[in-house]
């Protein structure tokens, strides 16, 4: 090894998106310092418009492919699709919650940390080696830890931050142990090399141990049962926009790396992990839905429902096929919109009434028909009622496992029906009950846009899934081209 070996070429233009997002995050931080306090609420618009611009750039990059630095960084439609999904999620969260953030204060830090968390997710989506993967994950997690306890005068928020950092640290340790075993067995951190080397060796017990640890470590991140204990408390305590971003962005990014890790690096031991994932998916769907039923706090209800949703998404991993990857990506994309809709309503409602309790949602349909309608559409989509997008998404996911895992299909079907019960309970409270305080809730402009957008996307994808399905097909296809 020569001391100054720069023989591996780096093409900076391939990293355009990451650099733009990093620049946006740094720019917001600096703007926050130099702008007077009254002008800081404008930072939300700067972040939103910046993200929209970068999404535009990302769309023009569609179709790019290649590997940077000998497989350290993978560029394909798969990564690009996830990156766009994360940025859309961040943009929706920012657009829908500006007033909430003004109330919490620290706008510059809030917006720049949101953008840095997005950057972490984007790095994860492209990571081709274990180190990039881990650092992207930590960038996202550390940014989220700070965001979770940003409402630092509120004990619940601080407690949530405490719980999150301890459990995130522990799960990272477990994950790292698994990754280090993988490195010890193969001598490489690059996933494509790992996959080649594992294919040549017999399956060793240490590899099984590594698999168990990686599944446990990443199971925490997607809050799959039995690694889900942290999520309801953290979701309830965190500021609502952060909860919303945590449940869609963090989860989607974790799925992006799980697919990459298991299907790019570990396809050789597929029969060792497929059943484990299938069983975990089954348990997650059952427990998530059953525990969601008695919840009386809307954020806790959505937290448990998002655990169940993670279970549905895991179903797509079981077959390690192109169709499965397509299902995961399709579902994650529409889940972003449904979650953004539901949580924006919850955050705005909290802003006006100061309550997250389900009983205070009584008569919301009379106080604000739009908020009630968006909540209803989002929840029904999560339940998988046709013609909403969630139905199509679940169809794509479960279609992949009809051969061989019929029991899991039945669990999914039965539990989807069970979930309708608690989703409709919210609808019942909103539409049937008389409001205690009948004063109408005026929804501000940006929130109206967010709500209508999420509702329209959920409806349109449900009725006409063709275009998104084609995009996702091309993304899933590019996954196997490396």
């Amino acid at each position, binding site marked *: 090894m020569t001391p100054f070996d720069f023989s*591996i070429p780096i093409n900076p233009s391939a*990293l355009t998106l990451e650099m733009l997002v990093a620049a946006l995050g740094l720019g917001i931080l600096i703007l926050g310092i130099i702008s007077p306090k009254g002008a800081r609420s404008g930072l939300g618009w700067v972040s939103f418009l910046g993200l929209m611009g970068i999404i535009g750039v990302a769309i023009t990059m569609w179709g790019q492919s290649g590997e940077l*630095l*000998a497989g350290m960084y993978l560029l394909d439609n798969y990564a690009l699709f996830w990156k766009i999904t994360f940025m859309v999620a961040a943009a929706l969260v920012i657009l829908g919650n500006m007033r909430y953030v003004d109330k919490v204060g620290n706008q510059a830090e809030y917006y720049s940390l949101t953008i*840095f968390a997005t950057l*972490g997710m984007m*790095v994860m989506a492209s990571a081709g080696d274990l*180190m990039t993967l881990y650092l992207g994950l930590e960038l996202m997690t550390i940014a989220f830890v*700070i965001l979770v306890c940003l409402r630092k005068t509120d004990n619940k928020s601080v407690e949530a931050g405490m719980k999150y950092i301890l459990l995130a640290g522990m799960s990272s340790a477990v994950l790292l142990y698994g990754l280090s075993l993988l490195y010890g067995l193969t001598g490489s951190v690059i996933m494509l090399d790992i996959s080649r080397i594992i294919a040549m060796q017999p399956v060793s*017990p240490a590899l099984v141990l590594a698999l168990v640890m990686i599944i446990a470590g990443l199971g925490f991140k997607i809050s799959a049962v039995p690694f889900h204990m942290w999520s309801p408390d953290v979701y309830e305590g965190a500021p609502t926009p952060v909860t919303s971003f945590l449940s869609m962005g963090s989860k989607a990014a974790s799925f992006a790396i799980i697919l990459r890790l298991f299907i790019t690096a570990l396809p050789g031991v597929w029969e060792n992990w497929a059943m484990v994932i299938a069983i975990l998916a089954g348990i997650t769907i059952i427990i998530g839905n059953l525990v969601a039923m008695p919840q009386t706090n809307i954020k806790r209800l959505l937290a448990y429902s998002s655990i169940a949703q993670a279970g549905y998404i895991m179903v797509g991993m079981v077959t390690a096929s192109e169709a499965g990857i397509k299902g995961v990506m399709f579902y994650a994309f529409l889940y972003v919109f449904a979650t953004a809709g539901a949580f924006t309503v919850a955050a705005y409602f909290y802003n006006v009434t100061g309550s997250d309790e389900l009983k205070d949602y009584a008569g919301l349909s009379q106080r604000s028909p739009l908020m009630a309608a968006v909540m209803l559409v989002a929840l029904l989509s999560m339940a998988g009622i046709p013609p909403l997008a969630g139905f199509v998404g679940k169809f794509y996911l479960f279609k992949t496992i009809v051969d061989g895992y019929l029991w899991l299909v039945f669990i999914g079907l039965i539990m989807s029906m069970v979930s309708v019960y608690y989703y409709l309970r919210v609808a019942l409270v909103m539409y049937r009950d008389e409001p205690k305080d009948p004063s109408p809730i005026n929804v501000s402009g940006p929130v109206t846009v967010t709500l209508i957008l999420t509702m329209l996307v959920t409806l349109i994808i449900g009725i006409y899934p063709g275009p998104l399905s084609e995009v996702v097909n091309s993304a899933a296809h590019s996954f196997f081209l490396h």
Partner: protein
Amino acid sequence: METSIYAVVAFYGLAATILGAATMVVFMRNIVHSVLFLAITFIAMAGLFLSLDADFIAAVQVLVYAGAVCIMIVLGIMVIQRTDMNETNLFNKQIMAGAGLTALTVAFGAIFAGRTAWVELVAADAVPANTVDAIGALLLSKYVIPFEVAALLLLVALVGAIVLARDEEVQANADN
């Protein structure tokens, strides 16, 4: 690769020191004592790195972990109020469950690792005499993306520490 008897003795000695000191970190009731054992753990780790010819990493381990991190913890303890120093690192009631789980994890780890036929991975190049140059070159060529992400990660952590530790009243006065 020929392994000398000294290397084997050094490895087992260091490994025993690390495990023993790490256990004491958990079991000491006075948190300052725990920190001292933590420093021993870190220094023994540096010894392990040295035995692998990673002299730069060993130096960083001593400077950053045994030095800075431990001193930060002690400083943190100093400024936090407490009643009795001997009751600062206590167990909760889950001690039996914790012991059981740890024993199970260790047992499984040992069995799985023990039954694996480990392939000895020989590096393509010998360790260069000057490891700092090689590490620096690698960080800015092959590993440049994780390197830059780590830089941003530190920035985020720094911003977060300031936001969370900042006194709200002081902040409000500064703005007015």
